[in-house]
């Protein structure tokens, strides 16, 4: 890639830049980082982020955005997302869909199961035949039983449901749908579990279990990729260090991925419409509006709130908390 033009940016000291774009600071650096981020105003923080993101270089193949790779999955990006999304969920200007979820928060679990569209479609008269559990991959390898969950939900015992929502149990499901195919009464255990998982997060019960807490990681991993790149995965996400099970050939590919993506015609961090491309700002704007209207941003703020509370209780910074939940279990 020949550098024929380079847009230069003024950004603070080099050490700040290094710090904020480091994915895995060491212990001391976590707190330093948190102090620095807290010291920046919303405008400062978001402005810096976008200037870095939009810095581009002209290459033979087209415009390349070389900073995206340094920004994704960093505490800096996560902080920027938090600050940016907060005004969108002011209590008195919530979207219509978000308001429904906010009101549902105060209602009982049984109310939710009778009114949430996914739950309504998922369960009617389960006869406990066990066809779902017979071939559930999660039931094979974990203490998990979709039939038992459907049975419990059917009982409409508020206390028992709350206990369920606080446990690891509902988080084992693979969402594969094998259960839905087999149910003689055309129910959908995995659909019900989807609904239960959302309820658990709505009410903040998910933080009481190890697997539930992982949702904080999920909220920033997929949510951050969506919010910033319009795609739940970014081609740089599967770092071989965290995917050792993929083997040495994968690690070899990952070391030279830009070259190989370009070789087969993809557009890593470039403008275009194929894999790895940088999303156009107009598209991203539109999607963000849709996700705000659709209640996603509100939902993320609830996950954020529960995490902040639990982090404070544990005496961790939010960044330490994030790191903790993604490796626990």
């Amino acid at each position, binding site marked *: 890639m020949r550098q024929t033009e380079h847009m230069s940016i003024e950004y603070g000291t080099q050490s700040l830049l290094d710090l904020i774009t480091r994915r895995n600071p060491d212990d001391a650096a976590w707190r330093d980082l948190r102090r620095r981020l807290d010291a920046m105003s919303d405008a400062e923080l978001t402005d810096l982020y976008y200037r870095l993101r939009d810095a581009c270089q002209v290459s033979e193949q087209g415009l390349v955005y070389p900073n995206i790779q340094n920004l994704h999955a960093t505490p800096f990006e996560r902080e920027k997302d938090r600050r940016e999304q907060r005004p969108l969920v002011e209590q008195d200007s919530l979207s219509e869909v978000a308001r429904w979820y906010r009101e549902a928060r105060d209602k009982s679990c049984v109310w939710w199961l009778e009114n949430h569209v996914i739950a309504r479609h998922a369960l009617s008269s389960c006869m406990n035949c066990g066809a779902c559990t017979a071939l559930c991959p999660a039931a094979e390898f974990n203490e998990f039983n979709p039939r038992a969950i459907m049975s419990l939900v059917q009982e409409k015992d508020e206390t028992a449901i709350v206990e369920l929502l606080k446990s690891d149990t509902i988080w084992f499901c693979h969402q594969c749908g094998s259960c839905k195919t087999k149910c003689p009464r055309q129910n959908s255990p995995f659909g019900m579990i989807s609904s239960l998982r959302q309820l658990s997060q709505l009410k903040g019960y998910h933080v009481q279990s190890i697997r539930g807490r992982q949702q904080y990681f*999920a909220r920033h991993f997929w949510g951050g990729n969506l919010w910033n790149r319009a795609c739940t995965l970014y081609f740089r996400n*599967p770092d071989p260090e965290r995917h050792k099970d993929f083997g040495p*050939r994968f690690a070899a590919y990952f070391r030279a991925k830009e070259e190989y993506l370009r070789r087969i015609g993809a557009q890593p961090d470039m403008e275009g419409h194929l894999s790895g491309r940088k999303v156009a700002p107009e*598209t991203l704007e539109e999607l963000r509006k849709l996700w705000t*209207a659709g209640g996603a941003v509100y939902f993320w703020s609830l996950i954020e709130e529960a995490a902040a509370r639990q982090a404070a209780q544990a005496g961790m910074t939010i960044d330490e908390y994030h790191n903790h939940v993604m490796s*626990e279990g």
Partner: protein
Amino acid sequence: MNPYHLAGRESTWQKHIKDIPVDNYFLTLSCILGSFYPASETMVPKVFDLLGLRWATTHTSHNGWSCCTAIGYHGDIMPIEATLLTVARLWALAQEAGMEVITPTCVTSFGTYCECQELLEQEPELRGRIARLLKDTCGRKLVIPRRLAHVSDVYYQHRERLAGHFQYRLIEAATGRPLRVVDHIGCHYAKLFPQRHAVGGSEYCDVLAGMVRTWGGENVDYPERRHCCGMGFRQCMIPPNRGATMASVHKKLKSMAPFKPDLIVTNCPGCQVFMDKEQWAVHEMTGEKYFIPVITYQELAGILLGWDPYEVVGIDFHTVPVEPLLDKIGIPYDREKSWHREP
């Protein structure tokens, strides 16, 4: 050899004939393929062009692609309304491009399109709300597609014509034996709406098996054929949970091994990643050697078309080496083009 009544199997899947459109496709992409096997996506437009099909995809800045957010939905960070709106936008883009049917390369997208279609059909109030929000937020119109097809449906529909362009068949060059091919179907393709949306239904789904037979190979049935690969969204993508995924892959490999498959074909990006990549870890942890090449149907078509295995098909993206398969079929390749220095 399978103790099997082939005629019985034929008559079973043939009960589920899917009305797959023959033209006018709007292509949407996959998060996972884009990150792990991008060549499978870049080959799709090439195949569409080869067959002279009318197709379009998103590329202007305002009408850019987004993923469908289904990983977010099945990962429980997206309320259904947000996913519905995202999907509705993609459907609107397809309409605006003048294409009748939206064809995703991703099976999760496909499953989500089917679920969204059903929900909107059955819930008039929800439909009204989504239509209104879509219009108010970005000025687009909600149009619920009549037919839904996955890109593997398209390849299935045109498999005979495609075969006409092939330089190779699924046959062992040295002996003339048809290759034994395990077809692994993504759960969200066949299991969610088997009657309406899966070629051949869910039990004897034919979308990949049909390609294999037409292209010279032999179908393999094995006890865990319908078992999920274990990808499981939050199970594979949140590091501590990966064991469940690995266990499922291992179970399937162990079950298919006695049938000595020559390769595994997939139509789901998630399945492709994990059936391919976990084989190394399974070997490391159990000592069991499988190393059965796992390829997507796009890659399969690509190699049989005689396209360059490295530059076009991207076999280097694989953890299990694909070269032994090429050798078996008698497809030549230039080893110098590989970026893996060890065999």
